[in-house]
């Protein structure tokens, strides 16, 4: 398994598309969670509004604020990463090369998942480092005293962020195995995160049955998990306490296992052409 993991890691780090996705993800994260809110704060017409806009950007709010982008748009890009990594094996025909030359199907699959999970861990660490730096700079520019969250709160936020992104990347990977490629899996995955979950969120306020269903949606549960860690609710980022923090955590864990198992079962059972 370690050999397979190391092989997958080599493929992963040498793939330009991985760095493009990671770079765009970090750039968007900084733009939407730090830069644009900071510009809004600077452009605020009154002091009360400015104070409200500044508050989430300060280091004290880092644990919740840094992962506000993860449930929706952050997750969607990471879904693309998962679909690219697993789905390209079909497009290039490399799945047959790999599986006819040594690793068992499950070993190969779990090595890919382990690579994705460790890469996402690294991405989350870099993202938190950049968010911390941005929050310090913002606090300094606003002449606010530096006050950081506890190490436990930061660790919880990083773990929650990692879990949410792993859930979405596994959805991308398993969809790409279901559809034997990247295009349809990315398309459907993005439609789910960006359109379907949003429509459900909107309709939930109108129809009670949909509101009940919303509690079991992966995106809504990811938003609830982030909300439980102190992030401000916002419809555009999908952050809302639809369910409790512990229920959200269990739900995200179960979806992660479900998406991982879906890909494994199909990969093991289906013929490789």
């Amino acid at each position: 398994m370690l050999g397979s993991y190391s092989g997958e890691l080599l493929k992963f780090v040498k793939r330009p598309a991985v760095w493009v996705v990671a770079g765009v993800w970090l750039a968007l994260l900084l733009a939407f969670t730090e830069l644009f809110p900071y510009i809004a704060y600077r452009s605020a017409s009154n002091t009360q509004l400015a104070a409200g806009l500044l508050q989430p950007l300060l280091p004290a709010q880092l644990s919740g604020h840094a992962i506000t982008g993860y449930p929706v748009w952050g997750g969607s890009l990471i879904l693309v990463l998962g679909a690219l990594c697993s789905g390209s094996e079909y497009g290039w025909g490399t799945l047959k090369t790999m599986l006819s030359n040594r690793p068992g199907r499950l070993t190969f699959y779990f090595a890919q998942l382990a690579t994705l999970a460790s890469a996402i861990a690294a991405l989350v660490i870099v993202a938190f480092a950049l968010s911390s730096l941005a929050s310090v700079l913002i606090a300094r520019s606003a002449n606010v005293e530096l006050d950081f969250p506890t190490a436990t709160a930061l660790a919880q936020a990083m773990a929650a962020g990692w879990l949410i992104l792993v859930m979405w990347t596994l959805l991308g990977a398993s969809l790409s195995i279901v559809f034997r490629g990247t295009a349809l899996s990315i398309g459907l995955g993005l439609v789910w995160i960006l359109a379907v979950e949003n429509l459900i969120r909107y309709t939930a306020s109108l129809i009670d049955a949909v509101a009940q269903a919303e509690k079991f949606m992966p995106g809504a549960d990811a938003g609830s998990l982030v909300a439980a860690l102190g992030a401000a609710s916002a419809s555009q980022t999908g952050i809302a306490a639809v369910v409790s923090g512990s229920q959200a955590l269990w739900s995200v864990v179960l979806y992660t296992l479900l998406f991982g198992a879906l890909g494994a079962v199909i990969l093991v059972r289906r013929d490789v052409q």
Partner: protein
Amino acid sequence: MADVALSTHGLTKRYGKATAVDGVNITVRHGEIYGFLGPNGAGKTTTLRMVLGLVRPSAGTAEVLGRAPGDPAGLARIGAMVESAAFYPYLSARDNLEVLARHANVPRPRVADVLTTVGLAARAGDRFASYSLGMKQRLGVAAALLKDPELLILDEPTNGLDPFGMADMNDLISRLGHEGKTVLLSSHNLAEVQQICDHVGVIFKGKLVAQSTVDELRGSAVLVISATPIEQAEKYLVGLVGREKVSVERDMIRVNVDGHESASINRQLVLAGVEVHELRREERSLEEAFMAMSATYAGTRGGSDAR
């Protein structure tokens, strides 16, 4: 059956109503080079995929080096290239092999060794996407050799190679055979199969129609005689060796006898008053044997509906 490296028993694959492989029984012994022949779509690649565990049979079984197809312990002793060589386009040849080596726990120096073996050492740092078809095929063979396997399964390894590359590849496969490796070689190139294979299996429309040594498949040599008067010569030869062994085609008499009888036949024809203008031994090539089988079993030169 200790000398059997690979065997299939009633191996069958159906896709809906179409039967791609129909009850195939092949036996490949340790140390032999086995040619697997058949027209496009006959079911060769599907059979190889089943043997490697990529595709599950609809019926029948296969055993490869004492293991079930796709068993990682078995795959560790098999090197394979199925259909065209497929690798990661953004990686160099060296990195592609490095990925496979890590998966298979193969020592790193082996990567350089196999790249040298297939003549790609000088271009090892180039991206796979920039390779020609022939270079891609060479890399596919290099990947198959990476684990120094007991059994090599090569599907059309000379596809896309120029004549020099084909000759190099055939030399390499022959050398591997002489080193004691078992090779299952699927090929369209009948001259190459005739040259390097010990046994052959022929598949048409998913069915294995022949399995024998190359010489058995080609059949014995014939004597081709040009003589006048031809009627007298034919009558005399029928009396000499029997009606079933004599035929006349385009003013030439073909006699199915061993080549060492040619001098005796020549002398007896002359003594019988026949003028012998030409007498030569003619061997049927594997290609001729294959085409004759094609007419018998497939009805055409084309394949079936196999995938």
